[in-house]
């Protein structure tokens, strides 16, 4: 086809024009791109630089070492021990199934733990370590370490776990730690980011929980560079955290362990308080449990066994349970009456075995009655009628006032779980609680520590210490924090008449030193250390008139849970009170028989700061005491061996 050159020329020019137009558009677009680039890279550079840093830098928390807990002599009660675990990194392992099978031949793997680990392995990034076995013994971990070349991707690691070398003896006081639960997080308003660390443990009960903020410490942090998948490329810098504070308790571990051994087999509680400064030397509840089980994660079966045990091992009975104080309350009634001049130490009351109050017969524990009874005799032989009579004269308000003065009905601020306030009832309290008027019979019941009156073993010990010193002794559990001594609970004078106090103390002395005293058998033979005490037996059941007529069933013939609680409070030495002790044996029967002997043993152990010599005991008791001391020594040796193995 021939072309017209003119036409071609026109076409050529048109194409040329359009090419310049298109070229111009392209250049304009390129210019636009350059402007956009300038905007992003020059004007917005700082913003994007920051975003890039945020992308790249991650802050990882370093958990601080938890503060340790010591007893008053520096014996360790809660420590952080290295625990070994075996971890696997998927990308290094290659054939995971093969490596795990090899490992299984080397050490024993828990099937449940293994299954969880394999599941986690599937989900997590290939470079993240996954724990295959936790709390591996030193022997097993060395075995893994030696065979490391044959186990690609498997590494032994060391971490810290909480350990309680004194085990059950301090389970209720120190408490235990456990992994953070959703419930814990919901309770805390501004949760420490530490709590989000997997497997981080916080205090669940006892001092561990109540002084969590002190013990936890401050988190450290390290800034790391991570890639898009979250893998750490390198560490940029590192700031170590602050370890938690070390706490020293006032408790004497040796005494505490002795108390546990002495009360073994009974559902009981005992508190030893230093009369001088309120230091709690022992605060024991039996039976107990091994807190280490909870740190590890207790099995359902073990936990159910603890829950269903009728002796309630989980309860810190010494502070959280309250009991009718029974006759141990009589000092309160007596002091209230003396202070308010409702009676004098010399006044006597005639006890025929009962007192008619508002057409109801209030019985004395001794059916035949005590005859003419003065203050000393009323305490020594625990005459109920004397106290009915005195109480009706002084009135419930004064009694309640005296009870509170002596620490009953007051909730002491101890760092333990569920510390109870007990109850010193008044007219107002009953009106509010039950909407009923206070009856004269209520006063009679309260006078002998029955009815509405409730006190914890801790409160009874405080009451005894206050009677022994006349000061408002307050219990103290934390002796020092990081070596800084905490204020003591020495207290100030209660403002009670010293003569009245002396009369009451004399009565208590008679209880355990006069031949007719209810705790004469549990006296201390060593003259320098003689103690003053008071027995108590608190009824769990109501004795009906019919039952009384037919003859009251003996405690021993009742099922355990319907027997009386046995109580005993004491202080020693009588001349210069050092320790006050309260013992409650749940459903133990009479106080003189079930509670006074262990209380005496405990106070002696505290005074001698070790196993008391047999000479301290009355001769008739010695052979029995000797056998018992042998048993406890064996138990102490056994525990020491167990600890020695662990250390």
């Amino acid at each position: 086809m021939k072309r017209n050159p003119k036409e071609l020329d026109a076409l050529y020019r048109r194409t040329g024009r359009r090419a310049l137009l298109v070229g111009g558009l392209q250049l304009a677009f390129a210019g636009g791109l350059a402007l956009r680039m300038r905007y992003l890279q020059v004007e917005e550079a700082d913003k994007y630089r920051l975003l890039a840093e945020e992308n790249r830098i991650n802050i990882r928390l370093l958990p601080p070492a938890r503060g340790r807990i010591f007893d008053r002599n520096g014996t360790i009660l809660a420590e952080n021990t290295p625990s070994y675990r075996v971890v696997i990194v998927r990308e290094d392992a290659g054939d995971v199934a093969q490596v795990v099978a090899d490992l299984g031949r080397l050490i024993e793997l828990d099937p449940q733990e293994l299954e969880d680990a394999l599941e986690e392995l599937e989900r997590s990034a290939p470079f993240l370590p996954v724990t295959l076995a936790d709390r591996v013994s030193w022997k097993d971990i060395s075995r893994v370490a030696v065979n490391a070349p044959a186990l690609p991707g498997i590494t032994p690691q060391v971490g810290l776990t909480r350990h309680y070398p004194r085990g059950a003896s301090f389970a209720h006081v120190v408490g235990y730690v456990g992994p953070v639960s959703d419930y814990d997080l919901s309770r805390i308003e501004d949760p420490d980011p530490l709590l989000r660390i997997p497997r981080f443990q916080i205090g669940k009960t006892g001092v561990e929980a109540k002084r969590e903020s002190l013990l936890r410490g401050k988190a450290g942090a390290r800034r790391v560079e991570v890639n898009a998948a979250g893998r750490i490329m390198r560490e940029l810098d590192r700031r170590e955290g602050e370890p938690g504070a070390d706490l020293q308790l006032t408790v004497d571990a040796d005494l505490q362990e002795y108390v546990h051994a002495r009360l073994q087999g009974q559902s009981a509680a005992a508190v030893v308080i230093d009369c001088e400064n309120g230091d709690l030397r022992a605060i024991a509840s039996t039976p107990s449990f091994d807190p280490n089980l909870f740190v590890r994660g207790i099995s359902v079966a073990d936990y159910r066994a603890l829950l269903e045990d009728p002796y309630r091992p989980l309860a810190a009975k010494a502070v959280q349970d309250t009991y009718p104080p029974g006759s141990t309350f009589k000092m309160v009634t007596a002091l209230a009456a003396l202070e308010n001049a409702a009676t004098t130490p010399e006044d006597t009351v005639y006890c025929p075995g009962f007192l008619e109050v508002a057409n109801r017969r209030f019985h004395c524990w001794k059916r035949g009655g005590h005859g003419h009874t003065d203050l000393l005799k009323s305490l020594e032989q625990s005459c109920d009628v004397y106290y009915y009579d005195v109480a009706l004269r002084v009135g419930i308000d004064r009694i309640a006032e005296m009870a509170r003065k002596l620490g009953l009905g007051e909730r002491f601020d101890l760092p333990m779980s569920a510390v109870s306030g007990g109850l010193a009832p008044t007219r107002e309290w009953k009106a509010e609680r039950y909407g009923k008027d206070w009856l004269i019979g209520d006063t009679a019941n309260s006078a002998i520590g029955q009815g509405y009156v409730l006190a914890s073993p801790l409160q009874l010990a405080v009451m005894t210490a206050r009677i022994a010193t006349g000061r408002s002794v307050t219990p103290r559990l934390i002796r020092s924090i990081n070596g800084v001594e905490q204020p003591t609970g020495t207290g100030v004078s209660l403002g009670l008449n010293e003569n009245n106090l002396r009369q009451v103390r004399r009565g208590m002395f008679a209880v355990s030193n006069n031949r007719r005293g209810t705790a004469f058998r549990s006296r201390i033979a060593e003259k320098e250390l003689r103690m003053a005490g008071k027995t108590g037996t608190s009824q769990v059941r109501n004795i009906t008139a019919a039952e009384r007529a037919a003859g009251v069933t003996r405690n021993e013939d009742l099922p355990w849970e319907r027997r009386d609680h046995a109580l005993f409070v004491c202080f020693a030495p009588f001349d210069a009170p050092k320790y006050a002790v309260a013992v409650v044996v749940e459903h133990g029967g009479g106080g003189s028989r079930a509670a006074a002997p262990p209380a005496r043993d405990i106070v002696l152990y505290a005074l001698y700061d070790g196993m008391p010599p047999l000479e301290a005991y009355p001769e008739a008791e010695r052979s029995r005491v000797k056998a018992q001391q042998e048993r406890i020594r064996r138990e102490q040796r056994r525990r020491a061996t167990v600890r020695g193995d662990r250390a």
Partner: protein
Amino acid sequence: MSYLEYRVQSVPTGWRKILHLNWPLVVLLMGVAAFGFLMLYSVAGGSFRPWAEPQIKRFVLGLFVMFSIAMVPIWFWRNVSAVAYLGSLALLVAVELFGSVGMGAQRWIDLGFLRLQPSELTKITMVMMLAAYYDWLPAERISRPLWVLVPLVIILLPTYLVLRQPDLGTAILLMTAGGGVMFLAGVHWGYFAAVIAAVVGLVAAVFESRGTSWQLLKDYQYRRIDTFLDPSSDPLGAGYHITQSKIALGSGGWAGRGFMQGTQTRLNFLPEKHTDFIFTTLAEEFGFVGGASLLALYTLIIIACIVTALGTRDRFSSLNTLGIAITFFLFFGVNMSMVMGLAPVVGVPLPLVSYGGSAMLVLMAAFGLVQSAHVHRPRQK
């Protein structure tokens, strides 16, 4: 135009042709490729493997291909245009039937030594076909409707096949480049105005109808359009690329963070860092200075092509060269707009810089055609 119409005597022959190559263009291409080698070396963490070394080899091969094509007279290439076009259409059909699936789309045929992407090839053969068509078409017919329909078919056939793969980026490239060649060939501007008006009208209608009783698309289709147009509405999905890419770009600043110091790239925050998103690495490590330099090189290549096209009175040569320039421009224009967050993410590589065999070889072959047009341009006495 027939062979005889060229003034054969004035066209250099034999090895002398080498002297008449468009050497500035060769230097510009080498400069761009050098940027590519540098970045591929960097994203591999300072290693020639796995990307820089094969890329260098392919570029050397590409140079050889370019020189070989340049040695052959342009009229030969014009005469085989139709064959090349039909051949690449056949390959597109073959890929549809036997192709391997990569990145969620059927794109290549494995030839053993090379993974051939027919869609890359088609970009050039279609331009050749259109240029040859307008070279043949008498001037008075250019704007006649029937003769406008023919190039539309030439464009839409491969576009349809590419869309089926699906490869939206290449489809857009083909249509725009084809339309560009038609415009340059002198088709009446009224057609383009009508098409643009129709497209604008349709898009407006689609968006206007949203939420009304005569809604044209389903709700989920609108939502897909939304994320396509505004990736930041889906920051971990479609938006992730763009967000991270903008962070990389912006954090580069004026002079960049230094060679191999780009944290975004090195720590894998950027996906496809060696292919479609390689520009972000350049911009992060060499900053605005580096990015603008590459853009300047690209622009100079376009100018060199336009100069060549305007310097020849051979219609096939000039239309083909301009078509190739448009294709090349669309490559880097779309890619850069995408990484700068100006355009939705469609898979278009950065020409001669991104890692990839087919694209590099096809582009070098195209520049061979440009060189051939330059060498064999009709000389005036």
